[in-house]
């Protein structure tokens, strides 16, 4: 079991080390070695446990819980301090409520209670660990070069890279802790650390906007934290012996006990996963350097939110509360996808797409049938890989062309061919058959039909899915437009970045190819162990999809066929003679340049309007769930 503490503690050690290293070469070395070790550790853990199913461990180190409690108090104090200093009293209020609850819980109940098994591992934890351990560390490596360029571009921002990398590795550590902890008190501790890390990382640039958005994230996450603390309180209140503090124990305890904490924690998950009423923090988090966004969006933070909800999915199955959580997810999926249409800022599009996909995952988990949980886990995997790839691509492009606007990315295929192809694959991975996300959506449609009230979700998926097609393909279209005058600018991209990007691109494709293996080795056993039955795609379909992927990979070779014998002519411009850089003679004797932009449909899919609708709708649903819950509690 040594792997688990290693994965939790080692990143923390690396983090502390990085806090003290100012030398860049040394930092590079440490980050790379740490990343390698963490990656190796995850792989090792994978090979050790992927067949063994659920394993519970007790931690022989007694004072661990106490140390965590003390650290939590420190965190609370820190937040209190910055909250007061920046006059964000909502944050202050929330942290006070949360701390009071926590202290009460710790002092009244926990003294003397030690759940027997604090750590556990099963296939789901393993999947999460792989995502964190591989994608998270790749982002760390990427961040090395990125932050270098970032500070070269932004001289006005103080170089706090030591803090940055410290937080990065703490984040990883906390995420490992979160997915390996069986003890909900421990989960809560790691949960709070991720909140803190995200707060500091979002506010990294210390600009006004960054600070504001960091606090927004903090407040919303603290709101979830309060709910989480409430769940802990409820659990100990119901059973002071604390035996239900273990996730496994809680899950097997039945609806009567598990429902209330599950819903409260589900609410915490919703805030962390940035679903609809709380989506604004994730969009606001875009002010942070791109690796932070990548980390938050793909492998950590939001994934913590959906992780916990998927964990509790069996509890939600067939309940009204679960359905409501699912609906919140469903509507978030629909509306966030729609909002993404009206965005031209690449990172914002990615943000809304993340929110949408998290919504879909939550929708699956909320309704919580076995097939849906299967689909949800698939979504988590594919989303993490493709999204991190896209974020890193956008980050690289941003540093080269000086803009993160999709409109500025036209002709990327000429200017940065390799990045463009990677981005292309990443985008394809997000919505096209036979790539992963689509497979999961497909599975979700099939599963929803059989679920209760599934028709609503099927409709949401049918419409939301097509909306997704729109905003991704127009982005794709933009990057592959061949501009005759484009100049190549990607030569300056550093080799570390290439390495990470190549690896992620490869992963996107490989995971699609081997997903049947992942499914049968990890997801199916997990779903089987929880539900006693499992879903899988039919062999025929898998075959066909594999064929499609191979076909897709073969198609580019057709370009060779057209090497010669093809005559190039300029585009049709209404008969007007056009120069090679697409200038033509316009009216009034002005020479005009062709400008082409995508459609954004502000009128229909405007951010403000839909956000308002989504917030109202989802807020209402959550209130409804709250009322139902109160009914249960009383």
């Amino acid at each position, binding site marked *: 079991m040594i792997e688990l503490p290693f994965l939790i503690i080692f990143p923390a050690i690396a983090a502390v080390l990085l806090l003290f290293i100012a030398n860049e070469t040394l930092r590079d070395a440490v980050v790379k070695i740490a990343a390698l070790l963490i990656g190796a550790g995850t792989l090792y853990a994978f090979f050790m446990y992927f067949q063994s199913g659920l394993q519970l461990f007790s931690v022989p180190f007694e004072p661990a819980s106490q140390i965590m409690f003390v650290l939590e108090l420190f965190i609370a104090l820190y937040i209190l301090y910055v909250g007061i200093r920046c006059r964000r009293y909502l944050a202050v209020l929330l942290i006070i409520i949360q701390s009071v609850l926590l202290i009460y819980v710790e002092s009244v109940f926990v003294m003397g209670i030690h759940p027997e098994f604090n750590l556990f591992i099963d296939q789901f934890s393993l999947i999460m660990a792989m995502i964190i351990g591989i994608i998270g560390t790749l982002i760390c490596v990427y961040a090395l070069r990125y932050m270098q360029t970032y500070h070269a571009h932004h001289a006005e921002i103080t170089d706090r890279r030591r803090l940055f990398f410290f937080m990065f590795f703490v984040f990883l550590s906390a995420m490992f802790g979160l997915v390996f902890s069986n003890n909900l008190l421990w989960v809560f501790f790691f949960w709070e650390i991720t909140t803190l890390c995200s707060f500091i990382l979002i506010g990294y640039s210390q600009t006004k906007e960054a600070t504001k958005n960091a606090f927004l994230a903090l407040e919303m996450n603290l709101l979830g934290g309060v709910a989480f603390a409430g769940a802990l309180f409820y659990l100990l209140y119901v059973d002071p012996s604390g035996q239900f503090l273990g996730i496994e124990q809680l899950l097997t305890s039945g609806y009567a006990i598990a429902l209330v904490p599950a819903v409260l924690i589900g609410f915490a998950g919703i805030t962390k996963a940035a679903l609809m009423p709380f989506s604004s923090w994730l969009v606001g988090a875009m002010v942070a350097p791109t690796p932070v966004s990548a980390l938050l969006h793909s492998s950590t933070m939001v994934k913590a939110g959906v992780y916990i909800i998927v964990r509790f999915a069996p509890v939600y199955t067939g309940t009204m509360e679960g359905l409501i959580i699912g609906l919140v997810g469903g509507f978030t999926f629909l509306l966030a996808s729609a909002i993404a249409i009206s965005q031209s800022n690449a990172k914002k599009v990615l943000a809304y797409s993340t929110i949408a996909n998290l919504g879909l995952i939550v929708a699956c988990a909320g309704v919580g049938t076995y097939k849906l949980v299967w689909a949800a886990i698939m979504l988590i995997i594919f989303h993490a890989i493709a999204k991190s790839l896209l974020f890193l691509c956008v980050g690289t492009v941003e540093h080269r062309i000086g803009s993160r606007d999709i409109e500025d990315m036209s002709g990327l295929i000429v200017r940065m061919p390799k990045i463009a192809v990677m981005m292309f694959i990443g985008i394809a991975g997000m919505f096209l058959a036979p790539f992963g996300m689509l497979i999961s959506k497909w599975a979700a449609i099939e599963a929803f039909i059989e679920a209760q009230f599934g028709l609503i979700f099927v409709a949401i998926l049918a419409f939301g899915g097509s909306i997704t097609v729109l905003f991704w393909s127009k982005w794709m279209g933009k990057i592959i437009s061949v501009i005759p005058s484009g100049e190549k600018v990607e030569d300056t991209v550093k080799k570390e970045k290439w390495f990470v990007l190549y690896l992620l691109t490869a992963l996107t494709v490989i995971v699609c190819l081997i997903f049947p293996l992942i499914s049968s080795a990890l997801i199916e056993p997990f779903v089987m162990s929880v539900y006693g039955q499992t879903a899988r795609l039919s062999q025929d379909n898998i075959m066909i999809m594999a064929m499609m992927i191979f076909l897709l990979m073969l198609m580019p070779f057709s370009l060779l066929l057209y090497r010669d014998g093809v005559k190039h002519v300029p585009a049709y411009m209404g008969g*007007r003679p056009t120069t090679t850089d697409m200038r033509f003679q316009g009216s*009034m004797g002005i020479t*005009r340049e062709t400008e082409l932009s995508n459609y954004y449909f502000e009128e229909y899919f405007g951010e403000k309007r839909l956000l308002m609708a989504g917030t109202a709708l989802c807020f209402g649903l959550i209130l409804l769930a709250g009322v139902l819950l109160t009914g249960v509690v009383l």
Partner: protein
Amino acid sequence: MSRQIVMPFGPQHPVLPEPIHLDLVLEDETVVDVIPSIGYVHRGLETLVEKRQFPEYVYIAERTCGICSFIHGMTYCQGVERVMGLEVPERAHYLRTIWSEYSRLHSHLLWLGLFADGMGFENLFMNAWKHREFVLDVMEETTGGRVIQGSCKVGGVRRDIDQETLKKMERDLKGFEKGLKEMANVFLNDDSIASRLRGVGVLSRNDAYVCGAVGPTGRGSGVPIDIRMTGYAAYGEVDFSPVVEEDGDCYARCAVRVNELFSSIEIIRQLIDRIPGGEIEVKVKGNPDGEYFSRSEQPRGELVHYVKGNGTKYLARSRIRTPTLTNIPPLVKMLQGCELADVPVIVLSIDPCIGCMER
């Protein structure tokens, strides 16, 4: 970063058979800026007055435009006749009026077809042009030319229509009118057409006035300009009133033209009933000396032929101010803020005749 699309619209564009040149700036599909430019059909034919004697210049005046060729010829002739003080026989006036009304029918039907084509209504396009062939047949039968009639001359007309043919023409109008009614019903009542026309390209009455809109473009906005009311040629002898619509949108302009079809048929009937006998031309002697603004109502609106003679066989100046030219400023007004899909519809709604506009 702007979200604009800069689109060169024309000169070669399938929606408009003539080379029109617009630079469209779009946001999504909304036109935020549009600048027209002309000159693709500019030949400079007005200068030919210095090269061709005034009786031969009729042929050139007629070829200003192939759609309303007859009315160009007639307006020019009227101008010269006025300058020279020629008294044209009544019958010639009647014949000219009959032909110009047939020209109007022909032009409106042609326009309705193109308009339907611009909306993507292929069947209606075909239908309108099928009816148009009827008019062309009449034209060819009476003048010898399908589109360029060449039957007007200074001092009268070249060809007479015998009474029998006139009667036949009147008889044939009945069936023709029936077909038109059926087609008009589609234009005026079909909702898929209305969805493309209603509220599109609105030109307010005041804008129409300030920008100088004439013809159906002005009449569609409630400005009742119809030069036929001045009673040139034989228009003083027939009863009719200008067709006016108030809404100022493309639908209104379409409705004006559709209703004018029937008004034209009515005018032709009256003319055939009342046509007097007698000569069809007077002998032209001497040379024009003086100036005159000869005005007439083309299918597209008011046409002005300014002729100035200097006592020689060659005119000093001919200026042709065509209705399309003066309808361009209203067009610029109308195009602001429309949709890309509306651009052809709006451009067509003024019935642009670039050929005659640019001369």
